[in-house]
């Protein structure tokens, strides 16, 4: 299937949402005006993205492990990535006879989104692969020398297979967390050398050895809108809006900024796609944000690995069947909605839904439909209308506060 492109209407809508909630520094505003506006933002928290997040808010990060060492599913909101590390003994490269080999392989199957074709490399696959290689191979976070068994003859070669299960935006960050987690979680079999022969022990014979990581780099993505707005963890629509050009007359400067950073706040990678930047301040701002974000991610990854390790020692069975829950049963009770309103509450919806059903029972008997989604959607529309009215209300307050003192 061909790519589905965003309509101009959609693009402008997203652009507008993002830019209206922003206090531009170029505008000639008085100090207290800015102060009042920030106060309002603080109290009402009205400047939000389409899915209800603030500019600097990321989606929920979940990490679950499989039964084998080095296999994990990382989900960042609805984006899901499966990573699996495997190892084998190979001959080292001639120029580096005492170093092991690390391969990173990214695959995007039609499972991720219908526009991807099976067994075909797309630009996105190559881009992801290259970024991850830069972030994990070139930053020398893995001690490759410890993977050597016999110099010039036998070394371990680690292979990281990244499979994209669901592409709902910010693949780079999700894939990099998956790579990092699986590498840190992976343990290779122990090896003993006696004379010329090399014995590889099974896990039952000898405890496997964990991979040595000098530091934990992670790629954090920001979407740049209008050259001065940073959105962390962009969703699929935000990603495609900020990298595509819009109608003439609207500021087209936007793009995706990828920052690779480790837990010591050291930069490992910097990558910009999209239009050129006018000033470098935005990069500084992004780096400061990325430093905090990467620290929290790495802490979470480490915490997850430690808790997984302790439960493995207690012989608790860990399996991917644990990720089966009832979260996706009803689309409206999802934790991450693509459109979320401030006043939204699942329980509110439920009581309304029931009332609605009663009303409908009086009028017409509803047909048994395959998905009972129609009524819910209707309520959502109502709620959208209601919320827009509130936004207007907020905006009027804001205008009053800004204009009268000035």
């Amino acid at each position: 299937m061909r790519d589905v492109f965003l309509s101009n209407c959609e693009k402008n809508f997203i652009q507008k949402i993002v830019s209206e909630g922003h206090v531009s520094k170029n505008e000639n505003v008085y100090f207290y005006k800015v102060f009042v506006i920030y106060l309002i933002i603080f109290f009402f928290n009205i400047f939000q993205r389409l899915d209800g997040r603030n500019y600097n808010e990321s989606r929920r990060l979940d990490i679950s492990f499989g039964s084998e060492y080095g296999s994990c599913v990382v989900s960042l909101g609805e984006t899901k990535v499966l990573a699996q590390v495997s190892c084998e003994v190979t001959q080292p490269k001639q120029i580096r006879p005492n170093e092991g080999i690390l391969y990173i392989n990214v695959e995007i199957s039609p499972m991720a989104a219908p526009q991807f074709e099976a067994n075909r490399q797309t630009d996105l696959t190559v881009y992801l692969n290259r970024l991850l290689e830069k972030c994990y191979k070139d930053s020398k976070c893995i001690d490759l020398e410890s993977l050597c068994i016999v110099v010039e003859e036998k070394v371990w070669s680690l292979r990281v297979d990244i499979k994209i299960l669901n592409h709902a935006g910010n693949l780079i960050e999700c894939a990099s967390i998956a790579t990092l987690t699986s590498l840190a979680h992976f343990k290779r079999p122990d090896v003993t050398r006696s004379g010329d022969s090399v014995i590889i022990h099974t896990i039952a014979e000898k405890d496997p050895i964990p991979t040595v990581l000098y530091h934990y780099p992670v790629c954090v993505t920001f979407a740049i809108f209008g050259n001065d707005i940073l959105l962390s963890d962009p969703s699929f629509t935000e990603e495609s809006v900020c990298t595509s050009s819009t109608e003439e007359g609207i500021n087209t400067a936007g793009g995706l900024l990828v920052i690779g950073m480790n837990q010591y706040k050291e930069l490992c990678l910097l990558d910009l796609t999209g239009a050129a930047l006018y000033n470098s301040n935005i990069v500084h701002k992004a780096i400061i944000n990325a430093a905090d974000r990467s620290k929290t991610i790495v802490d979470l990854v480490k915490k997850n690995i430690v808790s997984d390790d302790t439960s493995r020692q207690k012989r608790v069975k860990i399996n991917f069947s644990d990720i089966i829950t009832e979260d996706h049963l009803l689309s409206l009770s999802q934790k991450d909605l693509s459109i979320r309103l401030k006043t939204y509450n699942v329980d509110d919806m439920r009581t309304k839904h029931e009332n609605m059903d009663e009303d409908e029972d009086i009028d017409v008997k509803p047909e048994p439909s395959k998905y009972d989604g129609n009524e819910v959607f209707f309520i959502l529309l109502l709620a959208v209308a209601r919320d827009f009215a509130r936004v207007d209300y907020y905006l009027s307050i804001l205008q009053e506060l800004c204009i009268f003192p000035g």
Partner: protein
Amino acid sequence: MGAEEKDLRDFKLQPMKCELNFLSKSDGSAILSQGDTVALVSVNGPLDIKSTSQSIEKSTLEILFCSKGGKPSVADRYKENVIRQTCEKAVLGCLYPRTGITITIQELEDFGGFLSCALNCACLALLNSGVSLRHVFACVTCGVDEKGEVVLGGRGCDTQISCVFDSIDKTLITCFSEGTYSEGTYLEAVARCRAASELVFAFYRDVVSKYSNAI
């Protein structure tokens, strides 16, 4: 969403757990665990495909099997083939001429009996996607132990017979096996699997009734 585990245990089928709509970008998706074996299937379609693989009279099924790590192998092609043949029988393809339906299977855990888990999961994903089906299908595996007796589930047996049945007449659609067995054993295995398939269909009904009034 675990099925009534007691019933399953009586029949010695492995406990099953399923979640539909696991992936947001696919038209239909399901993740199913049978015991420790876990499969994830996504269905996209009917959608437009390149003209060389279009068919005038029915939609083309594209099956992709992804193993957990490493490169695709011949064994994967065999599994794809089994799933394609089974699904082609079940999907009412003549309703969607000149289109394609893509079924992608991702292996998550394989502790034996993966193909039967993948088949059941594919059926649930097809149900979830809303593609028209002639019937649903269920795959049951049984093993033959050293004494030549048929055991349902059959984990760890050298000889394994898997049968796929349709939901309407309970006729055998697909059968695949490993190892050697006698003709009598085969007939007994088919009969046992047919009886156990009822449980799998009941499980499907259980899962789907959570969000829909009718299949």
